[in-house]
Every structure is written in C-alpha cells, then in structure tokens.
C-alpha cells in the first residue's frame, strides 16, 4: 500500500519558471491538501480539496493553483516561481471531516527557487 506519493523529491527552479508538483493517493480518500513547511514556521495550508472537481484556498494560496480531476490525484502548479516559494511542500489526504481520521502525509518535495 503506497499511501500518498509525491514527485519529484527535489527540484531547483529559476525565477519565473513554472512547474507542477504531483501528488497521488491510493487510499480512496476524499480530502486532499497541500501544505508548505518553512523552518521554524510549522506547516501552512496552501489549497485543499474535499472531492473530485472541488478545490478551495487555504491560508497561503497566492502564487499557486490546483486541480482535482480524479479522487486519486491533486497536482499543485507554480506558474511564475519566486524565491519566496523556496520551501518543502507536503501533500496529505484524509477520509474526511467527520471520520476522525488524521492526515496521511507524503514524503515531501524540496523546492529551491534561485
């Protein structure tokens, strides 16, 4: 059982470049999330989705976009990379709000923008 899988593990981007961080889960979870983690700052929610076709902004959505065309996949798009987007990005999933289930995290993508 793979759980939550993120690719790539590492990436270096130049300012202004674009990229997509991939996330897929095989647990049939309805809820999926993208967090970023900066040193000493904890995890901040970027976007989340409660099911295929439904997405919504989290705490720090600027500079990012998401889509959710299937239950399994929740890619995160950076259109014009900026140094402030240097961070570690975690994708997570859960059964849903009322199930009492905690988040299951992927192993993260370390992104550097120079």
């Amino acid at each position, binding site marked *: 059982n793979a759980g939550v899988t993120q690719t790539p593990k590492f990436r270096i981007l130049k300012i202004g470049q674009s990229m997509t961080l991939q996330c897929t889960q095989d647990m049939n979870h309805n809820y999926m999330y993208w967090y970023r983690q900066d040193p000493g700052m*904890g*995890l901040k929610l970027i976007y989340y989705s*409660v099911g295929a076709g439904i997405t*919504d902004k989290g705490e720090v959505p600027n500079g990012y976009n998401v889509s959710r065309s299937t239950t399994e996949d929740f890619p995160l798009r950076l259109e014009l990379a900026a140094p402030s987007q240097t961070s570690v990005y*975690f994708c997570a999933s859960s059964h*849903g*709000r009322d199930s009492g289930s*905690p*988040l299951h995290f*992927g192993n993260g993508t370390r992104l550097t923008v120079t």
Partner: protein
Amino acid sequence: EDKVVQSPLSLVVHEGDTVTLNCSYEVTNFRSLLWYKQEKKAPTFLFMLTSSGIEKKSGRLSSILDKKELFSILNITATQTGDSAIYLCAVEGPYYGNKLVFGAGTILRVKS
C-alpha cells in the same frame, strides 16, 4: 486569527530523561488537537485528542488535553535517540474540510 503555540522551540536531553512538550491554542470552535512526529520526511500521526482530561497513551508517549485552559502536553518517558524529531501540534477548528492549524514545532534531540 487562529493560533497554535508550541514550547519549547528546541530541547536537548540525554537518553533516559523524561520530556514534556507543550502546545497552547486559540481556535474558534475547537474540534480536536493532534500530535505528529516528523523525522526526516513526512509527519507521522501520534495522537488525536478531543476530550478534556482523558490521557492517550502509546508506549512511552502520552498526551492529555485541557480544553478549559486551551493546552495540551506530550510526555515522553525514558527517551531514546530514536525519539529525536520535530514534534508538531495541530488544531482542528470547524472549517469545512478539517483544515488544520499547525504550531511551529518543537525540535527534540536526544543524546546518547
């Protein structure tokens, strides 16, 4: 604004010591508090607490919630080097989608 504050920010102990990590929160319409352990990669779930005064226990780790005073503690007894990690506290409010508000974490280092 919802807020989760963890203390201390970092801690160095020797194997065998007991440690207490703190988490205080200000969240509208609190639903649950969760503890995660993060080693090199993904955070892994430790405990979910929803009721005051009921201790959750797993081996040498235990946690309790005080909803009146708005805090939780995570205790680790007889620490081992494998307990070295970042411990994250997160609180769930009433938001659609069970979004979590995370604290900055406590970095624990256990020396042999």
